[in-house]
């Protein structure tokens, strides 16, 4: 058997291939459901299954009508706009606050580090329904329910843990002597911070920001409780659609979102590679 160590018996080899098959089946399980909706979104009929025409690859069985729905229906255009506005604003807020905090947390002088870190990361763990109910009760008093501001604040709170994690990760490998070296070479501390620290944490900041954006973009439970009819986002619209009228427009939106995810994935991978290169890690 090629490539296998000497002591491998036939059972070893069988097991090895069996494991491979299982692994690929699991991967299929992960991917197929997502890919299946893509062709379904082009269904000319308002059904959620492959019509015989589609299977025969009859071009008449396919159509772009659901994509047209997205553009013509005011509900969807409003939802798309809201998702981006809220997502970007929340991401910026989370990134700014989170990055600054991460820098502080990375310092060895930080008091109560463990407790504060746990607190700042807790939005990731607490069930969304609890956060949503609590925010509803509390934001009501400040008139923040059914406003853009309320949603942006809420989503930023959810996105902050991600920013902290990614930026802290980039800072963890940060070699402190680089800083002293820069200072000893005559640079002012601020300049050194700007020229050395910032570029190194930048991939962490950007990927954290992306995480925060995606968290907001994909979030629906908080939106269910905090948004008014004017602030409906894409997931909120999909949620209604799935409950009320199952209509392949949702599949078209879903497909577009999948394309967006792929783009994000590529961006992140690029950033990760760049970060590794810059820091010279193995």
């Amino acid at each position, binding site marked *: 058997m090629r490539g296998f*160590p000497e002591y491998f018996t036939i059972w070893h080899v069988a097991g090895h291939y069996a*494991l491979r098959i*299982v*692994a690929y089946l*699991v*991967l299929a*399980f*992960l*991917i197929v*459901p*997502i890919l*299946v*909706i893509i062709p*379904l979104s082009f269904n000319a009929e308002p*059904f*959620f*299954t*492959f019509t015989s025409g589609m299977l025969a690859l009859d071009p008449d069985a396919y159509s772009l009508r659901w994509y047209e729905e997205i553009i013509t229906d005011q509900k969807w255009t409003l939802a798309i706009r809201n998702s981006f506005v809220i997502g970007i604003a929340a991401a910026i807020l989370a990134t700014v*606050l*989170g990055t*600054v905090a991460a*820098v*502080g*947390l*990375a*310092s060895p*002088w*930080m*008091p109560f580090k463990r407790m*504060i870190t*746990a607190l*700042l990361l*807790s939005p990731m*763990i*607490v069930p*969304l*329904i*609890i*956060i949503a*109910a*609590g925010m509803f*009760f*509390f934001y009501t008093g400040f008139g923040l329910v059914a406003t853009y501001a309320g949603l942006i*604040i809420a989503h930023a*709170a959810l996105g*902050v843990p991600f920013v902290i*994690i990614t930026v802290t990760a980039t800072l963890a490998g940060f070699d*402190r002597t680089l800083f002293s070296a820069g200072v000893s070479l005559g640079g002012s*501390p601020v300049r050194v911070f700007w020229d050395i*620290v910032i570029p190194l944490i930048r991939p962490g900041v950007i990927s954290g920001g992306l995480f925060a954006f995606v968290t907001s973009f994909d979030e629906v*439970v908080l939106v269910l409780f905090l948004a008014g009819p004017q602030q409906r986002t894409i997931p909120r619209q999909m*949620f209604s659609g*799935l*409950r009320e009228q199952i209509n392949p427009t*949702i599949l078209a939106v*879903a497909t577009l*979102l*999948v394309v967006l*995810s792929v783009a994000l994935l590529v961006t992140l*991978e690029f950033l990760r590679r760049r970060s590794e290169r810059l820091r010279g890690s193995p």
Partner: protein
Amino acid sequence: MAASVSDAPEAPRAQARGALQGTGGAGTTAGPRAAGPKRLAPEDARNAAREVRRRRLRAFLFVAPLLVFIMFAFVAPIATMLMRSAYNPTVADLVPASLEAIEAWDGEGRPSDDVLTQFAVDLKRLANDRTSGQLAEEINRYLPGTSSVVKSTARGLRRVDDDTLATSGATLLLEANDAWSEPGIWRALRNAGQVYTASYYLTALDLEFARDGSIQQRDTQIYLKLYGKTLWMALIITLLTLILGYPLAFHMAHSSTSRANFLMVFVLLPFWTSLLVRTTSWIALLQTNGVVNSTLIALGLTRDPLELLYTQFSTIIAMTHILLPFMVLPLYSVMRGIDPSYMRAAMSMGSRPIPAFLRIYLPMSLPGLSAGALLVFIISVGYYITPALVGGTDGQMISNIIAFHMQQSNNWELAAALGSLLLLLIVALYWLYDRFIGAGNIKLG
């Protein structure tokens, strides 16, 4: 680093460096060290302490803005919810005088005429303010069927003038409805008037206060069962993700880096895909006329379509699919770091593969395994969206009933109590997680 961006120019550099290099550093001024440990001079010690305090403050200042934000945006809401679960001043705000009057009542028969008159006066006021319905709802919670009594009585009293009410309010009340001569409705009023009450927590645990104040089981038993069901489903989901995720992570960890990165894309794509998209996919797959059923029928495996959607099964399988990356990523991360020579050594010494795996590899992969398992479990317990969309009735979890009480039955206090108990459960699990794994160890690819 950033915390020490602007070194204070007045502190002598040497002393600062001494403080930086930790306690009991290498002496104060430059120069050869004397033999034996040297103590810092008092002035140097004070400077060092001050420097330490300054650095601590500086680090803290970086975190402060976020801390304030999180306090407002996140912690305060949770606190509000906790408070809401035990604090309900509605009735106390509506009829304070009546509540004060009824305090003296012994709970049997009906309260004295003074109490009734006072209540009649209050009720007329509420009727005119159009808030009698709120009072009716609160009382109704303690004694179902009485809200119409309160409301109709209030309506009737609206037209009575104040003087008549002050003298014969009690009579008017008793004439309006028989319920006012029974103790039931008065007890309900008194209970509803309690500002701080544990009754919502009791309900959330399927208990209630008995007449004499002790705690007894409620007639309706829903919530404990639901908590149990939720935990059970979360356990199954965790096991499934483990069974599916372990081989995958194992294979990826034992592949070349480039191959592993390639496969990772297939794990990360679902992770990055919108939750609703994934749920939509499962609806499309499991529907009566969906892809799975159509395939099964086309293959002749079944004649009638199977009822796959809106069941416990669909909730479990959809959540397994959604949470699988959360299991694979930590597992892979840990497995990647396991030195293959251990297994090789064991096998070359004659060990059979399965015992070797169980004795050597599995224990070494345990940190990733437990991290993934706890993470999946904690997330499953609190999940709302997937059970809401694909679970139907049978696949409901505790979050769904919290949402029900928030949105449909209007019992916000009960929703808050249920949410608080859920939070307690999660905090306990999170504490376990932090204790054994460490929350800061989460790697995100």
